[in-house]
């Protein structure tokens, strides 16, 4: 009941006219970002953060807008999967399997509409799951002490690569690099660390600059290297002919996909890609011979789309309740929270209840907005697919420059951003994942604070870190998170690959 009251208050926040306006703007921009070639969701949200700042938006408005962007990007990713057989982002990979065949049969509009409905269902189910689960988890998290938090952060890093991740050692390495960058500056006892007397470093390395540099600038360099400047020829889609019966036919599939996706999103180490994979595979099993998967079955479009949207809402659960994001985009959202001076974690549910519930209500509203946007406006988004990256990426880079410049008016920050971009290019070449670096940078101060707390209380006795049942549990999951990729990872990766390659 308490939850319901909070949620109603949340709707009060989310339905305020200017918040609603920014939610709509965010949903539109998000779909745009998802649809445009070469602009992943994490990248897009990162570029928009400085802009949200410079606009002087209130915390809840900024968060509502960027959550809508996040939700929208997941919708947008499917468009190129269906029309071009090129996934807009990794989780949209499975949508290619039946989406592209549908498009080839002249049913592109139907495939797009079905995927919009399935995405809506997936997000809706997962948002309801979030509303039910998040307060419980937040209350549970209040029992965490410093040692448990330290273990939780280790767990977050250990599982970040995901079960399907290639090389967990590289994930840990990246996390260490990120945490090291976080130690630059004056620490909370007033000691200067690694500042080398440079004034700009006293306050530490700004993570927004790092994120924008690592993502946006390195993306530009990757496009230059791939020489993928040319645009795709414009695509004409057929007129939509979809009956209620066809929509109703995909609802059970969407429901199952949404639930599975949500679970995959909440669990550490699973994530949206696995969510859509599991949903698709299960649906194939459930329907058996009744389906014609891989040849343009509408349910083959609905299942992975519901799965990946369910997972992306599910991923907000650990981010909001524990302050520990499980994906790149939620990490970027965490960056926004921290820079708005909101401490993420269980206390947020009591201290900033209006913001948290406002955002959750905005997710629900955003979903309806996205469904409304996506069915009639899909033509516009389809046109965007043919925007050539050779014009798009320079402009996006410029917007990133303007965003960073308008925060601080400092050239130093811009040089820093370019340097991080070059660094990001080399790291990506070496397959060192960037997300753990970002997460290390974000969680570093909290992680160190909790370590110090735990050790101070125990008078420097390190065993305190695994002294409670809960802490031992967290450490065990962390260790599993590092071992499982070696055991089941190759098998899962092979299956996902086999699943997507049978088509070609």
């Amino acid at each position, binding site marked *: 009941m308490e939850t319901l009251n909070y949620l109603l208050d949340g709707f009060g926040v989310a339905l305020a006219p200017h918040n609603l306006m920014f939610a709509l703007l965010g949903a539109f921009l998000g779909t745009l970002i998802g649809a445009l070639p070469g602009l992943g969701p994490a990248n897009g949200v990162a570029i928009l953060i400085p802009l949200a700042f410079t606009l002087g938006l209130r915390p809840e408005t900024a968060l509502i807008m960027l959550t809508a962007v996040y939700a929208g990007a997941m919708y947008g990713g499917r468009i190129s999967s269906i029309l071009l057989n090129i996934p807009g982002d990794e989780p949209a990979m499975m949508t290619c399997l039946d989406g592209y065949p549908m498009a080839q049969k002249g049913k592109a509009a139907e495939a797009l509409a079905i995927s919009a409905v399935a995405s809506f269902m997936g997000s809706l189910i997962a948002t309801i799951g979030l509303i039910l689960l998040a307060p419980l988890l937040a209350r549970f998290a209040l029992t965490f002490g410093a040692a448990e938090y330290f273990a939780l952060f280790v767990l977050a890093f250990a599982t970040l690569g995901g079960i399907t991740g290639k090389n967990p050692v590289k994930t840990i390495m990246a996390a260490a690099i990120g945490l*090291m960058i976080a*130690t630059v500056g004056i620490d909370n006892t007033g*000691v200067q660390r690694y500042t080398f007397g440079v004034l700009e470093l006293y306050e530490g390395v700004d993570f927004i600059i790092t994120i924008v540099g690592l993502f946006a600038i390195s993306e530009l360099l990757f496009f230059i290297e791939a020489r993928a400047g040319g645009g795709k020829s414009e695509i004409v889609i057929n007129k939509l002919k979809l009956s209620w019966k066809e929509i109703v036919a995909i609802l059970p599939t969407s429901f199952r996909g949404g639930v599975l996706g949500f679970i995959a999103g909440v669990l550490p180490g699973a994530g949206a890609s696995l969510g859509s994979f599991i949903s698709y595979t299960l649906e194939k099993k459930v329907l058996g011979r009744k389906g014609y998967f891989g040849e343009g079955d509408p349910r083959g479009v609905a299942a992975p789309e519901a799965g990946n949207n369910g997972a992306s809402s599910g991923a907000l659960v650990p981010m909001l309740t524990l302050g520990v994001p499980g994906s790149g985009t939620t990490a970027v959202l965490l960056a926004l929270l921290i820079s708005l001076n909101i401490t993420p974690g269980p206390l947020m549910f009591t201290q900033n209840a209006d913001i948290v519930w406002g955002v959750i209500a905005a997710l629900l509203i955003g979903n309806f907005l996205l469904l409304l946007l996506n069915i009639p406006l899909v033509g516009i988004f389809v046109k965007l697919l043919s925007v050539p990256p050779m014009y798009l990426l320079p402009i996006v880079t410029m917007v990133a420059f303007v965003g960073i410049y308008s925060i601080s008016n400092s050239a130093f920050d811009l040089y820093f951003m370019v340097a991080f971009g070059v660094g990001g290019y080399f790291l990506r070449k070496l397959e060192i994942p960037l997300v753990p670096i970002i997460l290390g940078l974000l969680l570093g101060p909290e992680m160190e604070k909790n370590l110090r707390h735990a050790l*101070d209380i125990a008078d420097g006795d390190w065993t305190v870190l695994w002294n409670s049942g809960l802490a031992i549990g967290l450490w065990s999951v962390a260790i599993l998170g590092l071992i499982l990729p070696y055991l089941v990872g190759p098998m899962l990766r092979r299956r996902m690959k086999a699943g997507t390659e049978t088509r070609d």
Partner: protein
Amino acid sequence: MALNDRLFGVLMLVLAVAYGWGTTQFPEPFGGAEAVGPETFPKLLAVVLALTSLYLIVKPDPDNAWPPGRTWLELVIAVVVLVAYTLLLQPLGFVIATTLAVGTLCWRMGAAPLRAYLTGLVSGVVVFLLFTYALDLPLPWGVLSVLEAD
């Protein structure tokens, strides 16, 4: 060959050692040393980075192909453009610097020169007007400041 990972491993090992050594250089915190000082966490990180670097040196992944020489040149040009953009943003002003930077990038990525610089000019003017008038966030006028009203 798996040279990249090995090389990176060695680099990171050097970083880990330097970073670890750095912890010994911190001034003692006000009020004397405690069980956990400013150096505890960094020391832990140095150990983690050193261990993972060693792993990478011993068990490197296969290399990804590096771009051919000409592409390197393009990449260097792009980075130079970005640095020059930062350098010229104040003195030349936002619109001119953007026209040059975005234009050059579009051109190097394969657009026809005229269309490339036109894209730069249009995007620069649009963003400038949007920021200065709609959002009230002044961007530098630079040499165009003669046009600035009052």
